[in-house]
């Protein structure tokens, strides 16, 4: 039977390890055996993240980093010190690649990802149903796609066949999937940031 102290210790240790696991990454270089690294800073929407590891773990000047959630990102060595056996790598922020151009075409294939009914990462395929004509230079309000989306798709990405984001899935209307165009999302984010700034 565990004593109250030992039981509490085990729990606290587990919690701390979980916390540490989140800042521990895998560092892989060219298929060779991988080492570990510390996620020094995760980076924001514009700044990349920083990883610290041993210099002997990274041989070349780039590496693949696998974050604790399984996301793999490419990282570049920015500083290297053989004496202290340290290396610093930065990686591009994990963000959606947004399609700025070319314009969407009616009939083009699009992919939506969502979590309907508790199923994680469900994909569905459809085509662009309509592209609003650029009347008076006004940006289109909605992307209309011929695909059927369940509620769990709301807020998720609508992407083209190269994986570039074209919109944020929002609702079904008259049998069509409506998504907020990526350009409208970007404009909204810029305005929201400007408002939030002191």
């Amino acid at each position, binding site marked *: 039977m565990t004593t109250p102290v030992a039981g509490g210790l085990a729990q606290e240790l587990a919690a701390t390890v979980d916390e540490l696991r989140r800042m521990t990454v895998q560092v892989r270089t060219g298929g060779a055996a991988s080492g570990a690294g510390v996620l020094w800073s995760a980076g924001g929407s514009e700044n990349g993240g920083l990883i610290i590891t041993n210099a002997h773990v990274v041989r070349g000047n780039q590496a693949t980093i696998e974050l604790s959630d399984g996301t793999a990102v490419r990282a570049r060595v920015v500083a290297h010190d053989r004496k202290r056996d340290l290396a610093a790598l930065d990686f591009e922020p994990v963000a959606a690649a947004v399609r700025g151009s070319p314009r969407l*075409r*009616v*009939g*083009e*294939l699009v992919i939506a990802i969502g979590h309907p009914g508790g199923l994680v990462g469900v994909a569905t395929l*459809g*085509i*662009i*149903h*309509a*592209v*609003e*004509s650029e009347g008076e230079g006004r940006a289109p309000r909605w992307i*209309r796609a*011929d695909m*059927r989306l369940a509620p769990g798709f709301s807020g998720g990405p609508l992407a*083209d*066949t*190269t*994986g570039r984001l074209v919109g944020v899935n929002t609702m079904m209307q*008259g*049998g*069509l999937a409506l998504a907020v165009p990526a350009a409208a999302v970007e404009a909204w984010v810029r305005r929201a940031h400007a408002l939030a700034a002191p």
Partner: protein
Amino acid sequence: MSTVLQSLSAELADAVQSAGRAVVAIHARRRIPATGVHWRPGAVVATNHTISRDENITVTLSDGITVPASLAGRDPSTDLAVLKLAGQSLPTASLRADTPPRVGELVIALGRPGPSVTASWGVMSRVDGPWRTWQGAEIDSLLRLDLAIYDGFSGGPLIDGGGRVLGINTSALARGVPVTIPVATVERVVTELLERGTIRRAYLGIGTQPVRVPKSLGRKLELTLDTALLIVSVEPGGPADRDGLLLGDVLLELDGAAVSDSADVLAKLGGDRVGRPLTARVIRGGQVKTLQVTPGERPQSQAA
């Protein structure tokens, strides 16, 4: 990366773009415009049920220009109508008449319920032989679709992956189920509507009801079929009345073919039968009698 997926996507968009040039918006009803296809130079095909007026019709072309159009004619039995445009250099639809669509083939339905073209995709769910609409018109083949219907579906073309037109879509011929009127049928109707403005259909001026022929009578008269058509109404002065068919006659055969359903009668009344006598076998007063009846041309908006 995924080049097959990307080229499929580009090909679908190319098909929509090229076929979409011949797809027009038709302003001939309230609320949303309907779709039409520039089928032959100066002739636009649309669905009859989406054209609610005969005059003041305008058409918006794929380049955004709106022009007046005149109604060349309508055929409610196939749900087709033809409009004429004056002096347009708009491209005509590229038709696929040689190879019929196949079940499972990827198809796109186009519409133009406004200035821009719209698309929905799906597959051919059924391809079958000739069928007859509830108003008696023969459609060359049954083409059923597994795809979603949106505003502007009716009157729009069904296209294949190469942008070639397989027919005209309508939701009004099969209780809202999307069907496509094949190219061959559209061609026939367009030719006739452009020539005469109406589709000629023969008619007899009778109303019928299927009845069972009593076994004893059947044996006595040496009949093979046990169902025939009781004539329950005869239009006064109509072709059947003129040629001596009577109320209460039981129609057994028409032009040598047994009839047990009103569709069997309609099948004998194509446009080419107008003025050409048919042999009718009827039971009258317990005896089989043979008569000659000459179908007339059915007046517009008359069922049988």
